[in-house]
C-alpha cells in the first residue's frame, strides 16, 4: 500500500532569508538587517498571502524583556516610497506582552519555531488613499529591556 499525500509539491514562488544574529538589548533593527536592498525580497505586485517562518534560538523571556519583529512592505526596493506595516510577532515574557500589547498569553514566547502569516496589502488609514500593494518585503526588529536579545533565522515563503 502506498502513501497518500496532501502535500503541495509546487516550488515556492519566492523565498527570502533574514538573520538576526546576537541582537543586543535595547536595539532597533540590528543584526542582519541593514537598510539596503540586499535583504529585500520581491514577492510581486499582486495581493498575496505569505508566511514568515521564524527559527528563534535566543530571545529573552525575562520579566522585563520583550522583542518585536515587524514585517514591512513597500512599493520600491529601497523603501523610499515609504514603509508599510504588514505584520508583527512578539516574543518575551507573557505578562509584559500583556501590559504592552493588551493580551497576555498563557505562556511566555521564548525560543522556538513560529509562523507569522501576512498579507501584502497596506493602507494608510486615510479615506482618500487607496490601499497599497507591496511587492517588496523586509524585516525589522526591536529589543526592549535590560537583558533583551534576539538570535534567529527568519525565512519567507509565498502563499504558505
Amino acid at each position, binding site marked *: 500500500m502506498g502513501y497518500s499525500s*496532501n*502535500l*503541495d*509539491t*509546487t516550488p515556492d514562488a519566492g523565498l527570502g532569508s533574514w538573520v538576526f544574529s546576537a541582537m543586543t538589548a535595547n536595539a*532597533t*533593527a540590528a543584526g542582519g538587517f541593514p537598510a539596503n536592498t540586499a535583504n529585500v525580497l520581491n514577492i510581486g505586485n499582486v495581493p498575496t*498571502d505569505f508566511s514568515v517562518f521564524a527559527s528563534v534560538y*535566543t530571545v*529573552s*523571556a525575562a520579566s522585563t524583556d520583550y522583542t*518585536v519583529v*515587524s514585517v*514591512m512592505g513597500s512599493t520600491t526596493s529601497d523603501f523610499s*516610497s*515609504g*514603509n*508599510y*506595516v504588514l*505584520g*508583527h*510577532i*512578539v516574543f518575551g515574557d507573557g505578562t509584559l*506582552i500583556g501590559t*504592552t*500589547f*493588551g*493580551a497576555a*498569553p*498563557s*505562556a*511566555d*514566547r*521564548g*525560543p*522556538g*519555531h*513560529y*509562523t*507569522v*502569516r*501576512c*498579507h501584502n*496589502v*497596506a*493602507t*494608510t*488609514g*486615510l*479615506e482618500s*488613499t487607496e*490601499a497599497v500593494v507591496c511587492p517588496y518585503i523586509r524585516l*525589522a*526588529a*526591536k529589543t*526592549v529591556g535590560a537583558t533583551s536579545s534576539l538570535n534567529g533565522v527568519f525565512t519567507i515563503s509565498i502563499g*504558505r
Partner: protein
Amino acid sequence: MVNKLNDVTLDNAGIIDVNTIVADDDVGSSDVYDLKQADPCRFNVRLNWFWPNPNVGLYQVVTVVGGSDPTFSSGYFILHQQLFGAADGISTICGVTPAGYRGSGTYVLPCSNVANYNDGVTTLPSVRICRYVQVWVYTVGVNSAVSFAALVEQQ
C-alpha cells in the same frame, strides 16, 4: 491533483462580532468563534476598522487569540497580532515607523490555528492546536477608541 498542505475547508465562516466599541485605554474583545477544526488549518480574520479621532502618539493592538476550549480555561495563545494607529505610536513600541496612519479601513489578518510558545530558554517549544478563536483589541491613549467588526472567513 495535488492538494495544498493543511488546506482544510472552513465551512462555517461568519461574523463573530459587529460594532464593538473599545473605549480609550481599554481592552475589548469579540465573541469566541468555533473553527470546528481539530487539525491545523488556516483562516482569515477580516477586520472592518473605524477610528473616528486619529491623533499622533496613539495606537491600538489587535490580537487574534486561540485556545482549545471555548472559555480558554486551558489557556489562550497568540495566533496573530497587528498594530494600528499613528506612525509615532507604533514606532514607540515596535521600532518601525509606517508611512501614514494605520487607521480606518478593511484589513485582512491571515491566521493559523497553530500556536507556538515556550516558557523559557531551557525548555522545548510547545505547540497547541486552537479550535476556538477570539479577537482582542487594546486601545492606548485618549482618542484611541475604535469600533470594529470581525469576520472569520475561509483563506
